[in-house]
């Protein structure tokens, strides 16, 4: 149940067996389930708990007054929401489920104990936060400079590598619960534009989406058209191994 979490955090610090047991214990303490398309936390709320996604997909988003919505990241199994969320007085974004989601809630006391008892987990959580900021930077580049085709190709590559890192791909296939509206909200496009672009990607033999599954037909070319370099995901393992990566534990 917490394998994805251990794999994800393990990319940022070496976890001992004790650390793994600690994570499993704490993630089992307050487990909640929520249906699809529901808010887990809302912008403006005082943070009550740190969230760990155990199962399912969610998204963080922000909204303008007239209802225009921007997804700022996707959360998959193993992803914490904001770690260390307790230093913030009010949340600056909301988190909503996309599929049914099972998640653990950590109270401030749980969190404080966790980072005091295990410096490796503390380092891993901070590392995760920094990787999150790095993904946001890449998204600024995405919506600021990439074309519609490149944006969507980039998003597909990103999610594929994130899922791969926590063992949730089968070859070049993975779950794909996102609607065209979700993709539009993540890439700053209209759903119509997303629809047209996905058709073009299928015609060009890059990807196929059917029945909430994604198949990548030509990963090398998809990454090439997207100018995708997985380094910014700071996955630490094979995915980031494109030459410039030289992660070290400290």
């Amino acid at each position, binding site marked *: 149940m917490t394998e994805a979490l251990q794999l994800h955090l393990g990319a940022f610090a070496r976890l001992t067996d004790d650390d793994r047991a600690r994570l499993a214990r704490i993630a089992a303490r307050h487990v909640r389930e929520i249906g699809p398309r529901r808010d887990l936390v809302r912008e403006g709320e005082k943070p009550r708990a740190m969230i760990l996604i155990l199962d399912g997909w969610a998204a963080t988003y922000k909204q303008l007054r007239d209802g225009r919505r921007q997804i700022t990241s996707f959360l998959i199994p193993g992803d914490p929401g904001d770690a260390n969320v307790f*230093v913030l007085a009010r949340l600056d974004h909301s988190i909503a489920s996309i599929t049914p989601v099972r998640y653990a809630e950590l109270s401030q006391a749980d969190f404080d104990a966790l980072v005091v008892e295990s410096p490796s987990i503390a380092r891993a959580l901070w590392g995760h936060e920094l990787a999150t*900021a790095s993904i946001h930077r890449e998204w600024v580049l995405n*919506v600021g400079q990439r074309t519609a085709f490149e944006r969507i190709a980039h998003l597909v590559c990103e999610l594929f590598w994130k899922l791969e890192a926590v063992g949730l791909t089968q070859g070049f296939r993975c779950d794909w619960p996102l609607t065209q509206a979700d993709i539009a909200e993540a890439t700053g496009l209209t759903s119509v534009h997303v629809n047209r672009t996905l058709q073009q990607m299928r015609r060009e033999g890059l990807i196929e989406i059917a029945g909430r599954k994604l198949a990548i037909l030509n990963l090398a070319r998809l990454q090439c058209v997207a100018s995708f370099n997985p380094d910014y995901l700071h996955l630490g393992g094979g995915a980031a191994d494109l030459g*410039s990566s*030289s992660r070290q534990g*400290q």
Partner: protein
Amino acid sequence: MIDHFLLKLRARDEIPPDEEEAIRAMFTEVIEVPADKTIVRAGKELDFSTLLLDGLLCRFKDLRDGSRQISELHVAGDFADLHSFSLKHLDHSVMALTRCRLAIAPHDRIQAVIRAHPHLGRMFWFMTNLDAAIHREWVLSLGRRSALGRTAHLFCELRLRLGLVGLADETGYKLNLTQIDLAECLGLTSVHVNRVLKELRERGLVEFRGGRVTIHDLPGLERAAEFDPAYLYLERRPR
């Protein structure tokens, strides 16, 4: 020397004298760099972090065709790459947009400070949380705000961030950027930026000229931007 940084920290929490002392001892040298100099290159191994004392820096990423996106502007008192302490190499580059004065903090000294002062560890963590919050707001801007809205929003953000360190007031602030720099922040062409600046001026909201932002109608500007400063976490409270 690091007074801007202390102002920024103290806007969010109390920093007692012993912590201030520890922060001061964290820096080993001060260097000056000219405008347009890239001070951190993506992918390069780093063993120090850089605090901006004076001037403007940006974090940026380039696509293969040379188009550039700035993902955050840094003002005096900001750490440009505190996150390199943990990441060890960056996924983006950092460049001086004006002449800058920088203070260098070797990672082993930061490590020692965090070990001796866990509260400062949390504050440094908070500072990197803040960068992520700013990035999220920029994704919203570029993804969903109009060209005018996002330009107005950037001016509002800078007014608050510069105000925090005493470099802006209600009427405006010094901002030594070109329209090309602005375009690279806003995901617009410089021609488009030029047109938007003209519209902002004609609507009597704000004027950007000669390296200065002059705010004529702050509530109007904030309305046009849908600016809500919550993402800058300006409350002073124990963290």
